[in-house]
C-alpha cells in the first residue's frame, strides 16, 4: 500500500522529484568525490612527497656545484661518495637516537640500459646494523656514556619509505645482481619481474636482474635501484654515498620551553642550550646528526613536506566546506520539494487523517518518499562522484583515483541523511495539518 502511494506520488510529481533527486545527487557527488579524493589521492600525494618518511637530508659538505634533478644528485665524479656510510651507525648514538626511525644512503649514476639513459641508484634496502657494546652514546649536551650492550636495528629504504609498492620481491642488499626497477621505467624498457638486463656505465657492463618492480607515484618509478655496494663497484668507489635520508620523529617547535622558542642556540646560556639540545625538535636533532656526520651538510627537509601537507589540508578544508554547502543546498532543495508536495497534498493528508492515519503513518508516507529520493539521488551522486573524483584526480593531482569501496555506503548514508533532514520540517507540517479545516476546503 505504501509502495502504491509512493509510486503514484513520484509519478505525478516527476519533475519535482527529479529536481530533488538531482539536488541530492549533486551534493552526494561532491561528497563522494571529496571522500574518494581525500581517501585516495591525498595519500598518493603524500607518498609522492619525496621527503615524507625522511625528514632530514645529509649531503656531502663540499663547495662544489651540485644539482639535484629528479631526486638524483648530480656532482662531478671527483666529489662522488662524500658521505661514508660506515659512519651512519653513529646516528644511533645521538641523544635522540630512539627518535631516529631509520636512514638510508644513496649513490646515483646515469647508466645505459637497452640504449636508454636511466638513473641507477645504490641504496640500502633492508639492513640490520649493529652498535657494539662500549660504543660512546650521548646522554646530554656534554655528556656521554658507553653503551652497556650490543644492540641491533633495521634500517634502509624499507624502513624509511614503507609505501614503496613492490611487485615481485625486494632486492637483497647482499645480492650484487639484484635490481629493483621503477614501474614506469620497466614499462618503457619492456622489463618484467625476473628479467635479466645489462646496465652500461663508462663502457663497463653490469649484469642485473629485475627482482621487483617499484611503484611510488614519484620519481622512483623512473629509476633502477641496486644495493649500495653494487653502485659503488660500478663507480669504482670502495665506500661512500651522495646523500643520506634520515627519518626521525620530531615534535613541533612549540613543544619547546617558551623562553627558548625562536632563539638562536648559539646565543643561549649553557643551561638553556642543554635544555634546547634535549628537546625532540628539528633543530636539536639536526645539530645532533651533524655531530656524528661532521663532513655532511645536514638540513631538515620537513618544511617542504609540511608546506605540502598544509596545502593538502587546505584543499581538504575547501572541499569539505564546498561539500557541506552543497549538502546543505540539497537539503534545502529537498525541503522545497517536500513542502510543495505537502501543500499540494494537504486535502489528501486531511483525508488520510480522517480515515484513520496517525502521525507516524503520515510521516512514513513522506519520509519514505524522501528516503526513496535519497536512495536514488545517492546512487546517482555516487556514480557522478566517482567520475568527478577521477576527473579531479587527473586534472588537479595528475593521478588515477581508486576510491575505497566504503565510499558507496557513506554516500548513500549522506544522501539519505540529506533527504530526511530536508524533509523534517515539511513532514512536521504535514503531521500537524488539521483535518477539519482541510476537509472543509478552507
Amino acid at each position, binding site marked *: 500500500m505504501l509502495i502504491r502511494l509512493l509510486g503514484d506520488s513520484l509519478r505525478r510529481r516527476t519533475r519535482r522529484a527529479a529536481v530533488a533527486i538531482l539536488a541530492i545527487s549533486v551534493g552526494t557527488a561532491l561528497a563522494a568525490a571529496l571522500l574518494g579524493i581525500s581517501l585516495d589521492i591525498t595519500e598518493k600525494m603524500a607518498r609522492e612527497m619525496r621527503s615524507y618518511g625522511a625528514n632530514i637530508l645529509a649531503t656531502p659538505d663540499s663547495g662544489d656545484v651540485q644539482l639535484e634533478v629528479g631526486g638524483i644528485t648530480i656532482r662531478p665524479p671527483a666529489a662522488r661518495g662524500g658521505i661514508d656510510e660506515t659512519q651512519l651507525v653513529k646516528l644511533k648514538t645521538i641523544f635522540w637516537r630512539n627518535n631516529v626511525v631509520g636512514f638510508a644512503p644513496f649513490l646515483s649514476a646515469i647508466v645505459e640500459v637497452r640504449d636508454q639513459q636511466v638513473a641507477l641508484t645504490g641504496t640500502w634496502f633492508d639492513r640490520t646494523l649493529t652498535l657494539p657494546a662500549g660504543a660512546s652514546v650521548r646522554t646530554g649536551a656534554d655528556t656521554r656514556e658507553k653503551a652497556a650492550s650490543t644492540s641491533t636495528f633495521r634500517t634502509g629504504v624499507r624502513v624509511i619509505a614503507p609505501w614503496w609498492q613492490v611487485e615481485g620481491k625486494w632486492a637483497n642488499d647482499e645480492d650484487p645482481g639484484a635490481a629493483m626497477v621503477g614501474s614506469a621505467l620497466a614499462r618503457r624498457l619492456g622489463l618484467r619481474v625476473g628479467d635479466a638486463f645489462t646496465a652500461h656505465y663508462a663502457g663497463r657492463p653490469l649484469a642485473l636482474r629485475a627482482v621487483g618492480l617499484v611503484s611510488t607515484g614519484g620519481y622512483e618509478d623512473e629509476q633502477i635501484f641496486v644495493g649500495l655496494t653494487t653502485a659503488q663497484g660500478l663507480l669504482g668507489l670502495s665506500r661512500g654515498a651522495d646523500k643520506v635520508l634520515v627519518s626521525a620523529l620530531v615534535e613541533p617547535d612549540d613543544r619547546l620551553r617558551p623562553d627558548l622558542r625562536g632563539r638562536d642556540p648559539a646565543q643561549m646560556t649553557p643551561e638553556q642550550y642543554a635544555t634546547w639540545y634535549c628537546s625532540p625538535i628539528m633543530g636539536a636533532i639536526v645539530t645532533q646528526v651533524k655531530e656524528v656526520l661532521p663532513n655532511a651538510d645536514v638540513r631538515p627537509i620537513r618544511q617542504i613536506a609540511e608546506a605540502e601537507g598544509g596545502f593538502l589540508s587546505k584543499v581538504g578544508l575547501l572541499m569539505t566546506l564546498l561539500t557541506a554547502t552543497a549538502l546543505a543546498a540539497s537539503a534545502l532543495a529537498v525541503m522545497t520539494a517536500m513542502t510543495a508536495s505537502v501543500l499540494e497534498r494537504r486535502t489528501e493528508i486531511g483525508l488520510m487523517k480522517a480515515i*484513520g492515519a496517525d502521525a507516524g503513518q503520515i510521516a512514513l508516507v513522506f519520509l519514505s518518499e524522501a528516503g526513496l529520493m535519497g536512495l536514488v539521488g545517492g546512487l546517482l551522486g555516487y556514480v557522478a562522484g566517482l567520475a568527478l573524483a577521477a576527473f579531479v584526480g587527473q586534472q588537479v593531482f595528475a593521478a588515477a583515483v581508486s576510491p575505497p569501496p566504503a565510499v558507496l555506503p557513506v554516500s548513500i548514508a549522506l544522501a539519505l541523511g540529506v533527504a530526511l533532514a530536508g524533509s523534517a520540517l515539511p513532514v512536521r507540517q504535514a503531521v500537524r495539518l488539521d483535518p477539519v479545516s482541510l476537509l472543509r476546503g478552507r
Partner: protein
Amino acid sequence: MMSAVVRAEGLTKRYNGRVHALAGVDLTVARGEWLGVMGPSGSGKTTLLNLIGCLDRPSAGRLLIAGDDVTTLSQAELVRFRRNHIGLIFQQFHLIPYLTALENVMLAQYFHSLADEAEARVALERVGLGERLHHLPAQLSGGEQQRVCIARALINQPSLILADEPTGNLDQANEERVMDLLRELHAAGHALIVVTHDPAIGDLADRLIYLDHGRVVREQGLRPLAGGALVR
C-alpha cells in the same frame, strides 16, 4: 437501558472564542440507531459531526463514544479511537485521486491494520461497484464515488457511521442508491448520524434533531428503536 454509542452533555464549540458553532448540545445516540440532523446553513451540523467523529475537540462539555470519554484522550489515542469506531462519509466524496476505487478502500484498511484486498473487494461489491474496482475516482460518476466512500467507511466495521450531506452533490437516481445503502447499513446494525437538508432522507431516520445557532431546537422521534428501547 441499551448502552449509548454517543452521549454528549453540554457539548460546546467556539471558534476564536466568539463564534458559538455549538452551544451546549445534549445528545444520546443508541446502538444501532439512525439519527438525522437537520438545520439551516451555519447551524453547527458539520461541527457536531466533526466533534463526534473525533476530528476536532469540543471547547466545553463531555462527549462519550462507545462508553469512552474522548475529551480526555490524547491526539494519538483519538486517532486510534476514530480508526476503530467511526466511519466517515463526506459531501464532497474525498477520495485519493490517484488510487483506484479498490485502493481507496484498502487505504483505510492499511491505516487501521492490514490491507486485505479480498475484503475490500467484497465491500465494493456490496455497494454495487464490483465492476469498477480498478477505476480511478475521475473515471467514476459522483454517485459511484460516494459509494466508494461508503464502502471505505464501513470497511473497518465501525460501530458508528457519520455522513455529512451524503447526497448533497448527487442527482435523484444516485441519491436513491445512496439512501438504499444507508438503509442497508442501518439494517446491518451500524449506528448512523446523517446530516441532511433533504427531508426525504431525514424521514428515514429513527429520530431527527433540528439545530439552529448551535442548539438543538427540536427533536422528533419517528419510530421506536428495534428491540423496543425508547429514546428519551
